[in-house]
């Protein structure tokens, strides 16, 4: 039975730790002269991107190619998707092409779930971001990055580490996936945002909630800033960008209140001057560039564990 990676909640602690451990071994590959492993030779990975994305698509493409898989990129612009083809017909086309895995990014929450459970395709489905719902591989790479900097013990455990996720939680699939995964891994997550940028039902998430950034960050071991997704905003969620930056942006003054070991993260793309100032983004404690490097290793781990063997080693049941 095929398995998929649709939500960070699909991963048990053992699964998540297996992905992180595998990623740690695969990260060494980046330092070798030949950055290639034969594990997925002859397998086909389709990148199905209904929404614009540069780094996630490139990251998945690099990951699949380093594992010797064949990669087909299928972007909405300039394809039949922009001519009105339905998700179902696109899926049937992919199935006919013999895709082993479909990496899907879609503007509608739940589209990867639909693709995985409709019976249209037999391939593994990896959610690369759906609407405002989830982005599990981003959460895995964030956890991996935290584990490398903050992890304790031989396994790089995040037990008891405090993570502050700050900004537009309402529109952020990264925040939801991170909250779920970090909770699974034993970290304590605090979400910080203005009241208008929390989603309905956030009180049922396994997190603390705060409206006061200055009170939260001095205790945090990692501070993750989220982009304000203005393209998804139709109404007024805060009075002005300047007021948002002053209350919820990370600037040099706030950075000075962090503990010495605290790292600053951002899933990208960042808007310098809005949620994060340039001096913070370029500071030594900022691991934003490393997150991108780690993204390739984590996505290799996910693809390897889903496709490498006769049956997937991680992920939720179909």
């Amino acid at each position, binding site marked *: 039975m095929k398995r998929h990676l649709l939500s960070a909640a699909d991963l048990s602690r053992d699964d998540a730790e297996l992905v992180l451990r*595998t990623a740690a071994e695969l990260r060494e590959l980046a330092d070798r002269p030949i950055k290639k492993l034969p594990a997925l030779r002859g397998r086909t990975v389709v990148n199905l991107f209904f929404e614009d994305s540069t780094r996630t698509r490139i990251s998945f493409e690099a990951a699949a190619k380093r594992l010797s898989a064949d990669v087909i990129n299928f972007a909405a612009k300039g394809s039949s998707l922009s001519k009105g083809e339905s998700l179902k017909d696109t899926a049937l086309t992919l199935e006919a092409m013999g895709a082993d895995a479909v990496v899907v990014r879609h503007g509608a929450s739940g589209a990867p779930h639909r693709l995985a459970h409709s019976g249209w395709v037999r391939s593994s489905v990896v959610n690369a971001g759906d609407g405002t719902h989830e982005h599990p591989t981003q959460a895995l790479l964030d956890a991996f990055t935290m584990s490398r900097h903050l992890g304790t013990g031989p396994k*790089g455990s995040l037990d008891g580490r405090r993570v502050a996720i700050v900004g537009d939680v309402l529109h952020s699939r990264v925040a939801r996936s991170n909250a779920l995964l970090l909770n699974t891994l034993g970290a304590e997550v605090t979400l910080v945002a203005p009241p208008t940028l929390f989603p309905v039902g956030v009180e049922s998430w396994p997190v603390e909630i705060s409206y006061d950034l200055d009170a939260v960050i001095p205790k945090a071991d990692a501070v993750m800033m989220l982009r304000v997704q203005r393209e998804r905003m139709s109404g007024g969620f805060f009075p002005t960008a300047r007021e948002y930056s002053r209350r919820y942006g990370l600037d040099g003054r706030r950075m000075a209140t962090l503990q010495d070991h605290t790292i600053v993260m951002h899933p990208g793309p960042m808007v310098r001057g809005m949620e994060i100032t340039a001096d913070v983004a370029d500071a030594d404690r900022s691991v934003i560039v490393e997150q991108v490097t780690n993204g390739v290793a984590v996505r290799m781990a996910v693809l390897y564990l889903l*496709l*490498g063997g*006769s049956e997937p080693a991680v992920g939720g049941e179909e």
Partner: protein
Amino acid sequence: MPTHPQPVPPGPSSSTDPARPVRTVLDERDIGRALTRISHEILERNKGATDLVVLGIPSRGVPLAERIAERIAAVEGYDVPVGSLDVTMYRDDLRMKPARTLLPTQIPAGGIDGRIVVLVDDVLFSGRTIRAALDALNDLGRPRAVQLAVLVDRGHRELPIRADFVGKNLPTSLVERVRVTLAGTDDVDAVTIQGTAPAEEVTA
């Protein structure tokens, strides 16, 4: 980052099963003597250890490689680069089982280009692991020569591969299981063989 995750090998499920008696073929002192001999043979063959890189194949090959490197260093008076080479991704049976956990690959800082690589594994059986290791080396560089040292050669090769240095040749039948345990990873140093019929002689 885990440095040496050592999963329990899929060896004999129970050593007390009366239908499958376990016989010890090499004990701690036998293994020590075999490794000392192999170390000297490696030095003899290569006229020293100046260009050597010793790479163990996880999981049991790594502590064996470290012990061989220690012995060589003790004889020659200088350290020999030692590391590990995981071959999981290069196995030809990767698709026949669920995706396996990767084990550490640590190549010494000097790399393997132009060096003499001595691969070390615990048991040489079908030869498929070594085939995978040769492929893995190919992606890491171009050694001047590759040699193979194994603690036990149990026969039944399925590929044209042979060992240069052998601790013990152990004729076995295909249904028997050879298991190497090493102090540090397991409880004790031992090589055991588990058959299907009651053993005629049991040596402790």
